[in-house]
């Protein structure tokens, strides 16, 4: 089935559930899904009810789409995302971006948890993504180009919208929140990196490292969606501190930074 036909089926399903036409899409990373709970007049659609959506392989994964209002804006939020390391194809990983585009989304706020490579960062810092490095070894647009969705060779020179970044920094300042501004490098995972890899990534110009976001942003740009990226530095990357890395640490930090994250996100959405 062609992508356009799949999109029609998804659109029909969503239109049968809600009249809301969201213009802002939200992808909520590890431990940051709580923002979706604050959406009012919410319609919730579990992923398994959406045609062509990847079937989750992760136990206890409660993925759902939440559509409704947040700070006066119509939004669609993904509570839970698909990662390449889970074994999905990149087409599957980025399918929700295509869906958001079909729903009318013009702005994507994409969030993630990442490891801090920049020595000036602290766990709990929020980082505006100013650019990314695709080190997944792949590109989600490999294959015949869907001309109806975007161009064969998408420009990536301002993948992370400069106006949005400026806006986000302004909102952070107004709210008294210190934020970083840095380059996110995307790897496949699922292992955390070795200390030698972290030193290499620092030489390459990366400030933070993670296992998501990059494929989604590439497809969003292909679709002409403007992107704001926010990363929660959940731990320092390997070799910086004398301790092993664990997923529990990532979740703990996300929990601690939750209030600040919510305040920042609400402020930004209001101003968009």
């Amino acid at each position, binding site marked *: 089935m062609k992508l356009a036909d799949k999109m029609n089926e998804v659109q029909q399903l969503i239109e049968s559930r809600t009249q809301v036409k969201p213009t802002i899409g939200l992808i909520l990373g590890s431990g940051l899904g709580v923002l979706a709970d604050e959406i009012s007049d919410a319609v919730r659609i579990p992923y398994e009810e959406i045609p062509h959506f990847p079937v989750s*392989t992760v136990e206890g994964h409660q993925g759902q789409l939440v559509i409704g209002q947040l700070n006066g804006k119509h939004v669609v939020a993904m509570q839970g995302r698909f990662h*390449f*390391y*889970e*074994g999905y194809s990149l087409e599957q990983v980025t399918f929700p971006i295509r869906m958001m585009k079909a729903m009318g989304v013009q702005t994507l706020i994409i969030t993630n948890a990442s490891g801090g490579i920049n020595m000036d960062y602290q766990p709990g810092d929020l980082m505006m993504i100013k650019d990314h490095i695709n080190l997944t*070894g792949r590109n989600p647009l490999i294959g015949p180009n869907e001309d109806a969705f975007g161009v064969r060779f998408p420009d990536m020179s301002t993948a992370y919208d400069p106006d949005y970044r400026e806006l986000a920094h302004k909102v952070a300042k107004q709210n008294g929140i210190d934020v970083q501004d840095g380059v996110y490098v995307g790897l*496949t*995972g*699922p*292992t*955390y*990196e*070795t*200390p*030698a*890899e972290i*030193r*290499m990534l620092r*030489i*390459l110009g990366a400030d933070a490292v993670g296992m998501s976001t990059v494929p989604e942003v590439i497809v969003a740009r292909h679709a002409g969606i403007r992107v704001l990226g926010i990363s929660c530095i959940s731990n320092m990357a*390997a*070799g910086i501190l004398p*301790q*092993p*890395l*664990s*997923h529990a640490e990532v979740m703990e930090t996300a929990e601690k930074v939750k209030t600040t994250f919510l305040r920042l996100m609400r402020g930004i959405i209001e101003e968009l």
Partner: protein
Amino acid sequence: MANRLQQIEEGVRFIQEKIQLKPDIGLILGSGLGVLAEEIENPIIIDFHDIPHFPPSTVAGHEGRLVVGTLGGKSVIAMQGRIHYYEGYTMSQVVFPVYVMKGLGISSLIVTNACGGINRGFQAGDLMVIEDHLNLTGDHPLIGPNMEIFGPRFPDMSRAYHPEYRELAKRKAVELGFTLQEGVYAGISGPAYSTPTELIMLARFGADAVGMSTVPEVIAAAHAGLKVLGISCVTDKAVGEELEPLSHEQVMEMALQARPRFISLVKALLPEVH
């Protein structure tokens, strides 16, 4: 995934029926280093292609069999020959033997390989203990559903090469009176050797040596909670600015020269691998 676990289990069961002892230490013997397996006492030899789901090795200089027995007073299982990604196997196949060895009961893994020396201080014929690695294969053996029974979804790699084993190897080399280099191993897919510019890039990335194996196996070992010692045999100089043509025959020849030191080092350290 259920299928994959089942395949590992079938591999384990097949081998268990043929051996008496429970191996404690696994050995993966790289290009030209397989001869160490011939020193194993009371060996039980099992060809890769007889083991259910085991991918056969197709490279010259790789025997493609398991040798189980005792060496240095330890119960060991040695892979004489290994599975490489460039042969066309999936990463999941490449690391299959690591999970089988874990299933047989090993708690430590000694991985060996032949590599190119990027560090200008290295000479062809040097042995190097691996301090850390760079995964530049463009792939990852743990992509897909996690096998929770072996390890966590997001394994830590901050001490993938066990620090105590590295110290042990260095101490034994001193006792044996030869130089043991230490450095970062960059794992690429191959099978082409690197271009001069690629080698210059790898040097800037912090690599001391480059090769086409080891990284996937060590990732799987870290996932499975195995303590790893990595030993590389520097078979050629891989300095981008001074690169000369290289053949597999040269690699094998230098591995041959380093072989006596390699064998004496592994035999000397095995009794102290805990």
